[in-house]
């Protein structure tokens, strides 16, 4: 149970610590490198984007001597990637490159720190703002705080970031979504910053953002995936003036708790292939809940004549738990919807120590991953009395339920595991016999989300 007052005290005290996070960065990088991860330096991509786009501008500007309209458009474009590209905001980079971001250039000073809001964009419900802060000589944490005044739109923040650009000078970024309908003409955005890196002040800006112009077109197409567990129906695309779009799909799931996602959207027009999905954005739930939802995927500007949409789907199936009495072992238990198979040997119970041996396959994870996951991945098997009654509260299992055991891999070739349980820990279990005990397999957290093959929606 989190306590806000205590948390604020700890936050403020913790922020005063002088820590060396460079050492942590080196530690993490060393572990990643040892684990075979080749860490890409993010700024290289920005630099090369900058170089190639500046080169493109030079070519287009020169050619614009003869092609005036192109030169005119590019002349309005800002120096590429000045703001949003620096924060890996693909959507913002497109808008900015198209010269459709909104210049703000408003300044406030408080507590000796000058805050300038540089640029913003609105694409549908998506809003992002960048700015710089000067005079921040004593950073104490890695965040900034803000809120929106009462007369503004309702806003739900998605992410934020700060990067150092010089001594005492930082660039910052935030993005999120407008809740509810987006106003047609002007978006009131009264934003008040209250701290930057643990330095408090008040920097209030009464922003008026301009919503992006939008045009919609319909698309017709259907696809059934995962043997009918999910049905997709194309609805259309909202296209924003900034050069991005929202691909709207109705998703109907057989099981409400399953999680369905699309990872790549390749639109096939005249045999050309391109990934149009903006990878760093979550789908927006436009309407509906449970089994049927209309979901919007953020995409780059898509072609006019779309014949096929190739998608890479993913479905995380929810598997219900299963129980069996320990005296019924040996037994093979197969998950009903996912692919896990537990092949149990006969259980052993001596002096309150219960030992289960079993072969586990079909999780999609390696045996090593199963064992190392937080030290207790195999906590999937819980022991309880046959008379156990679930009170529906995860945190209070009662004295006849044991979810803590020791798990180890016995044989890497056969995937044989052993789990042992000390039943003396629980008063309701310690005197019971095998015939009075049961096990429960809880599949949540056990299986990896399976990858699915690319599939095609034929567009009519």
């Amino acid at each position: 149970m989190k306590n806000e007052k205590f948390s604020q005290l700890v936050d403020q005290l913790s922020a005063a610590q002088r820590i060396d996070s460079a050492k942590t960065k080196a530690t993490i990088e060393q572990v990643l490198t040892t684990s075979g991860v080749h860490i890409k330096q993010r700024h290289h991509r920005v630099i090369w984007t900058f170089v190639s786009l500046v080169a493109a501008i030079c070519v287009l500007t020169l050619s614009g001597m003869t092609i005036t309209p192109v030169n005119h458009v590019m002349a309005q474009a800002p120096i590429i990637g000045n703001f949003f590209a620096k924060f890996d905001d693909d959507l913002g980079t497109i808008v900015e490159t198209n010269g459709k971001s909104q210049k703000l250039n408003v300044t406030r000073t408080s507590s000796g720190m000058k805050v300038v809001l540089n640029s913003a964009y609105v694409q549908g419900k998506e809003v992002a703002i960048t700015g710089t802060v000067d005079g921040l000589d004593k950073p104490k944490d890695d965040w900034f705080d803000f809120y929106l005044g009462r007369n503004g739109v309702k806003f739900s923040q998605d992410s934020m970031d700060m990067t150092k650009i010089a001594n005492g000078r930082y660039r910052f970024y935030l993005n999120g979504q407008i809740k509810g309908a987006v106003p047609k003409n002007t978006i009131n955005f009264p934003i008040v910053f209250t701290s930057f890196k643990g330095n408090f002040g008040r920097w209030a800006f009464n922003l008026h953002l301009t919503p992006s112009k939008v045009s919609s077109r319909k698309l017709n197409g259907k696809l059934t995936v995962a043997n009918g567990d999910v049905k997709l129906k194309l609805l259309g695309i909202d296209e924003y003036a900034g050069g991005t779009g929202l691909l709207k799909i109705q998703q109907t799931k057989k099981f409400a708790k399953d999680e369905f996602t699309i990872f790549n959207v390749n639109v096939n027009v005249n045999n050309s292939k391109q990934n149009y999905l903006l990878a760093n954005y979550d789908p927006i739930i436009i309407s509906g809940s449970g089994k049927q939802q209309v979901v919007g995927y953020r995409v780059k500007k898509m072609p006019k004549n779309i014949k096929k949409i190739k998608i890479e789907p993913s479905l995380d199936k929810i598997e219900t738990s299963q129980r069996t009495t320990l005296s019924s072992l040996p037994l093979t238990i197969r998950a009903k919807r996912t692919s896990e198979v537990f092949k149990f040997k006969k259980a052993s119970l001596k002096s309150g120590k219960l030992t289960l041996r079993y072969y586990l396959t079909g999780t999609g994870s390696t045996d090593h991953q199963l064992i190392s996951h937080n030290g207790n991945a195999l906590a999937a098997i819980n022991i309880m009395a046959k008379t156990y009654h679930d009170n529906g509260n995860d945190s209070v299992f009662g004295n006849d339920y044991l979810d803590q055991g020791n798990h180890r891999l016995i044989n890497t070739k056969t995937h044989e595991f052993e789990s042992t349980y000390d039943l003396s820990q629980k008063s309701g279990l310690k005197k019971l016999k095998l015939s009075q005990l049961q096990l429960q397999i809880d599949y949540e957290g056990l299986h990896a989300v399976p990858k699915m093959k690319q599939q095609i929606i034929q567009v009519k």
Partner: protein
Amino acid sequence: MKNVKSRMVKRAIHGDQQAFAQLILAQTEYLTRTGYLYLSREVDVQDAISETTLIAFRSIGQLQKPELFRTWLTKILIRQCYKRYEEKAYEEYDVTKLAKLPSSLVGATVDEKLDLLGGLKQLNNQYRQVLLMFYYHGLSIHEISDITQIPENTVKSHLKRGKAQLKEWLGGDYFEE
């Protein structure tokens, strides 16, 4: 406020190692600060973060709810910190020797805050660990019991005594709604 992009987490869950690297490197400062809340020696903090990174890297595929990435990572780190904490002896506290809480922390100097933080760290360590896990990181009694391997009733009594110590020291109403 401290969200990470859950789409990036989903990519990491699906085996995108670069996405994982970006995600965990973005948590560098947070992991360091959290580590120092539970441990004092730098070598222990770095050791706990190293092990946390390795466990998270190996088990990200098991994460069910991408939006809980940071919570999940925090729990791994706390578990690792607690393992190292268990191996260390702790000092007895004396609340009368601790710095007093100023009327408002907003105007407090960095040194004053550090004195208070030092005071917090000098509370009986076992109580402090449990207070932080429960009231700061929002873990349940059951989860704390799992991490610390102490019975749930003992966790509850540690919370009660920790609250009493903190109240005696700070004189405030930190846990009264």
